């Protein structure tokens, strides 16, 4: 053996940016995350050329999966042209040679911050969700060692109590996004800060969801056809945002999650949050038919 067997030719960076050992660690952890759905797996979380908190966890998962034949869609708040989504998508294609798309239907990997697309994802697609805080128990137990033990014991009493107290005090559960959800009947996870509207899309889904928190160094997964049940009381149904009757002022679509735009004169108008769904609707209306896939919500009702 010589020194040469230990080293390799100098290269400014590795393919897909991450070096081989970082990729192998992520692969091992992704497999374990799939084997125990919803359970947070710790990983080393390498630094990538983006600031922590800007999608570095999602990025490391995507960079491990990507190859030159991949087709990448990246959204932030539902939009493909959000500044950070554009930056991440450009970086992934630059270091991997993968193609870029805005179309959910043609993507092989969808990396997202805060939304699940409205079009139903297929069995061959991976959704990578960026996660700021992977710990659903943080609010009731800030110490991560204790919280980890609570997951091990399936001890979610404090979480249930908090939700119950909200009902008593406010008449409803006040949780906005990041709605804590039971996965495979065993581990409570935070589905990342997606709105309540999007959580049912993860339940018994056809696609694979990888959730990755780079700053907090935790990775977890929801395999296809896995139960994801928001924590609710049997006599208080799960409430998604009241957007079923809103209409997008630009594309005319209705029955999807909307962005509210406050107006000078008071009141608000709405635009569809899944921006490419809106673009497809506009294109179709203007005579360039653009295929809109089957959607999880139909006429504002979840029906997948």
């Amino acid at each position, binding site marked *: 053996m010589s020194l040469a067997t230990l080293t390799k030719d100098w290269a400014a960076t590795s393919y897909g*940016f991450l070096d081989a050992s970082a990729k192998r660690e992520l692969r*091992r952890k992704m497999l374990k995350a799939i084997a*125990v*759905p919803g359970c947070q797996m710790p990983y080393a979380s390498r630094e990538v050329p983006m600031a922590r908190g800007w999608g570095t966890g999602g990025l490391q998962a995507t960079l491990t999966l990507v*190859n030159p034949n991949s087709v990448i869609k990246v959204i932030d708040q539902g939009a493909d042209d959000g500044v950070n989504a554009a930056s991440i998508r450009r970086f992934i294609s630059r270091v991997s040679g993968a193609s870029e798309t805005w179309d959910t239907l043609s993507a092989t990997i969808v990396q997202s911050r805060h939304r699940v697309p409205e079009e139903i994802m297929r069995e061959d697609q991976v959704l990578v969700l960026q996660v700021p805080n992977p710990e659903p128990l943080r609010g009731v137990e800030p110490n991560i060692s204790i919280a980890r*033990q609570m997951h091990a014991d399936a001890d979610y009493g404090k979480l249930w109590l908090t939700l119950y107290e909200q009902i008593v005090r406010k008449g409803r559960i006040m949780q906005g996004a990041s709605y804590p959800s039971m996965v495979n009947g065993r581990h409570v996870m935070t589905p990342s800060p997606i709105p309540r509207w999007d959580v049912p899309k993860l339940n018994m889904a056809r696609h694979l969801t990888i959730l990755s928190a780079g700053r907090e160094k935790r990775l977890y997964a929801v395999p296809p*056809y896995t139960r994801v049940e928001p924590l609710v009381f049997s006599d208080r149904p799960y409430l998604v945002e009241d957007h079923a009757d809103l209409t997008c002022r630009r594309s005319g679509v209705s029955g999807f999650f909307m962005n509210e735009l406050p107006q000078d004169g008071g009141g608000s108008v709405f635009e569809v949050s899944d921006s490419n769904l809106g673009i497809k609707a506009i294109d179709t209306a203007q005579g360039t038919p653009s295929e809109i896939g089957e959607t999880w919500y139909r006429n504002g009702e979840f029906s997948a």
Partner: protein
Amino acid sequence: MLTVAPPDAVELRSNATFEALLWALSRPGDVRTLPEAGFGAIAETLVDLECSAYADTPVMREHIVASGATLADRIDTADHVFLSAPDTTGRQLAGISCGSAVYPDDGATLVVAVAHAGQRVRLSGPGIKDTTEIALAVLPGFWAMREMLCLYPEGFDIFFVDGDQVIGIPRSTKVEVL
């Protein structure tokens, strides 16, 4: 500011191997195709100096040493176990690492050469829409041993390799011998 090289052969092989393993484990019972037959590429994809691995053949033991991983002399101390000639009764697995409820990820990954034929089993659980049936050349004792060891979320995860075909059975899968 940045020049990125195209992927080399090893990179492409590892990427494709991982894709097969990822989907095999995500959809238990589905058969996926590896870029090449055997265990070599799987080890290359998953194992390095962070790991401890066990193998029952000299060739695989060489692969493990070359990867920088610690060569385990017993199944019990390995996080990756490669069995080319597994005991189909499952008895040799008695000591396999199953992790803990606090760290289920410490449970081992078992890669076994087993023909995708023979004893039929029905699978259900995450990754499976209702139920699915497959055939694997292991005896019912193998599944009994697995059930005894896998106290969910503790447990180990299996890849059954037959040539270049792979089937994944994670610990979350319920297996009924038919």
